[in-house]
């Protein structure tokens, strides 16, 4: 790949002892590590995993003074270097050069929150003791000044024997000091300060005393308490207003992703349809044209349409997380979560699972208790992930009229969507209770949560994350869904009869659909839906692409009506609801199965989970369709 600043440039390679110089970015949670990382590397970053462990980290690329590539690795947020959690283990391994794929870093950027300097300096002691060239970055300088605190970076540098930069990663003030440090790394040894012998600090209380003394020497004045945060918390954690705001936030997110995304989705749909037609006209009538227009464009296009909606969901989650509200939501949720044997910390992975179960399951690593974590991993796939959204949206648009319920604020379509989200949530709660009263029975769970000050989310960070997500989504559309679409198109055109493709029903795909039809007929599904259920074992949203391809082929002679029209002809409302319920429960996602296996280290849990969720999906769909048939 060229050096033109593309998103996914080369990174330190697995296997090589070391490919290029790199600098490790470390710091406690909430110190603004990601904000600084985004400022330094912008779009030249990617997500990576260390071999063998699942801790996800970002790798970014910058140029050093000599114009050579320098990698910045954003390590997980840690409170100490004592390797207890997996996050701490990884950071420890990287900083001590034990991580085999990397070797010792050429430099360390230790980022601390200047508004809480003395507690954060506790982490500086063990990091500085490693003896690597280290820049200590005191972030949130703007907050510190605004709240009347101050610190003398030069005096602090003298005390700890390492360069210190007072910056604001959010506004960009002082970031050039960090860039200078990066430029110096690798080109020449960075030792502008004479090394200071740090006292040996055997334990935490000793380190905290040291940090207090150093802070004092550096003229540190702690800032006034964050007034705005206290005022907002008085509202957001208020006995009455708190839960109300919580519910309003959740409602606003749902209404937003449904109605807010609509114009964008219409635009993308028109673009996909228009470009498909254009391409079709360029190709000669025949197999190739059919493959490209119906197979590829019909399949991939019908999934790409949902990009705006998924990005909007990630945008809302990002705002909630970056502003600090998510931590409050976890506190509010803890009491309820404890009733089902979980804890408030599980709330954040579970909320992320509304976007995607894979990062959610990785996020459960912040839960210290093993049983709590296992329970959270097992119920996370019930949360309505964004891959279900295309399926729900399609079926709701086809079968639910948009009658207003609460005026402008809530329509029937959004209400049904919300209902489906609640259904997944209820299944998760029921499963958690079941686990807690059987295999995972144990005494108590604990909950410890730091509440960071509220902050205005950085547009830059939000945008970078959205681009990251869009790339991942489009990659999936371009690989898994493309592959399934092409395969399906082939299966739908074989075996040849009299030198041409058979009717869909007699094709291999049709025969497979026919074979499963008896099993799914009680659910109100015909053989075409059956084909979709099979292909969507790879990933849920594939069913939309599959149906796009199937109906595209079926209606190739006529002007093909939109997918919605075809579905209305093929499904009863009972079948449509059964299909939604099936998707609410079933674990149709290879990636989730794989990540559960990797995180829990055994095939037994994901296998049991797959069977359990599949069984629930079948029974739920059966019940929905049978009830509809009786009531009709």
């Amino acid at each position, binding site marked *: 790949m060229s050096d033109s600043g593309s998103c996914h440039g080369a990174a330190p390679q697995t296997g090589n002892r070391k490919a290029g110089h790199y600098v490790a970015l470390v710091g406690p949670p909430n110190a603004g590590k990601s904000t600084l990382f985004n400022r330094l590397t912008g779009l030249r970053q990617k997500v990576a995993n260390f071999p063998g462990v699942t801790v996800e980290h970002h790798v970014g690329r910058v140029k050093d003074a000599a114009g050579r590539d320098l990698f910045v690795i954003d390590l997980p947020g840690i409170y100490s270097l*004592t390797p207890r959690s997996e996050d701490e283990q990884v950071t420890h391994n990287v900083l001590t050069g034990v991580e085999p794929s990397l070797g010792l870093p050429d430099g360390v950027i230790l980022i601390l929150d200047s508004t809480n300097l003395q507690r954060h300096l506790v982490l500086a002691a063990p990091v500085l003791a490693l003896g690597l060239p280290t820049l200590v970055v005191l972030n949130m300088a703007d907050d510190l000044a605004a709240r009347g605190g101050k610190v003398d970076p030069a005096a602090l540098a003298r005390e700890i024997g390492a360069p210190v930069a007072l910056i604001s990663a959010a506004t960009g003030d002082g970031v050039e000091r960090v860039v200078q440090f990066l430029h110096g790394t690798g080109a020449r040894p960075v030792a502008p300060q004479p090394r200071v012998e740090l006292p040996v600090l055997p334990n935490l209380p000793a380190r905290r005393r040291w940090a207090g003394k150093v802070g004092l020497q550096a003229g540190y004045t702690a800032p006034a308490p964050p007034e705005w945060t206290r005022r907002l918390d008085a509202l957001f954690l208020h006995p009455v207003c708190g839960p109300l705001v919580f519910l309003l936030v959740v409602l606003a997110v749902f209404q937003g992703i449904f109605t807010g995304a609509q114009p964008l989705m219409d635009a993308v749909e028109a673009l996909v349809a228009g470009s498909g037609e254009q391409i079709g006209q360029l190709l000669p009538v025949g197999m190739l044209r059919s493959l490209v227009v119906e197979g590829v464009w019909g399949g991939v296009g019908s999934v790409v349409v949902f990009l705006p909606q998924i990005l909007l969901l990630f945008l809302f989650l990002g705002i909630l997380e970056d502003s600090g509200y998510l931590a409050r939501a976890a*506190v509010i949720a803890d009491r309820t979560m404890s009733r089902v044997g979980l804890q*408030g910390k599980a709330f954040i992975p579970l909320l992320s699972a509304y976007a995607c179960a894979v990062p959610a399951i990785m996020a459960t690593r912040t839960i*210290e208790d093993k049983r709590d974590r296992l329970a959270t991993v097992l119920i996370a796939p019930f949360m309505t992930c964004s891959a279900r959204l295309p399926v729900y949206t399609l079926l709701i648009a086809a079968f639910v009229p948009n009658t207003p319920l609460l005026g402008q604020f809530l329509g029937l379509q959004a209400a049904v969507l919300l209902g489906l989200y609640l259904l997944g949530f209820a299944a998760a709660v029921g499963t958690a209770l079941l686990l807690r009263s059987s295999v995972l029975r144990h005494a108590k769970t604990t909950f*410890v949560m730091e509440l960071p000050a509220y902050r205005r989310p950085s547009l830059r960070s939000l945008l970078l994350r959205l681009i990251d997500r869009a790339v991942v989504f489009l990659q999936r559309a371009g690989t898994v869904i493309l592959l399934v679409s092409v395969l399906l198109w082939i299966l739908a055109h074989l075996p040849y009869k009299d030198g041409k493709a058979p009717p869909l029903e007699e094709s291999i795909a049709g025969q497979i659909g026919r074979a499963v039809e008896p099993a799914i007929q009680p659910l109100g599904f015909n053989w075409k839906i059956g084909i979709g259920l099979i292909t969507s074992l790879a990933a849920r949203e594939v069913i939309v692409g599959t149906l796009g391809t199937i109906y595209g082929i079926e209606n190739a002679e006529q002007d093909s009506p939109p997918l919605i029209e075809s579905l209305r002809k093929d499904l009863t409302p009972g079948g449509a609801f059964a299909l939604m319920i099936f998707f609410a429960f079933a674990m149709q996602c290879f990636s989730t199965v794989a990540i559960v296996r990797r995180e829990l280290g055994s095939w037994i849990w994901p296998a049991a989970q797959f069977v359990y969720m599949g069984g629930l999906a079948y029974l739920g769909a059966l019940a929905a369709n049978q009830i509809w048939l009786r009531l009709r």
Partner: protein
Amino acid sequence: MQLSFKNGAVQTLAQLPAGAQAYLQRLDLPEEISQRLMELGFLPGAAVVAAGSAPGGDPRIFRVDGSEIALRRDTASHLYISSQPLPESDQL
């Protein structure tokens, strides 16, 4: 849950009324949790202020060493406090 020490009644953090301040004496919790709490500032000798709580009254929020930490009442009831700072030698 009141324990009597020789210098009077010793309470736990769970009983500290909102707005009141006390000094942490010791953490009576498994190593893993107490280590995490100490990293967050709950060190023996630290001044702790009881702030608000979640809408149901549990978990409670405590101010310690410059930050706000939410703890369940159950956990807080294992953190022993006193109204007086620790002797000079043990202080931070």
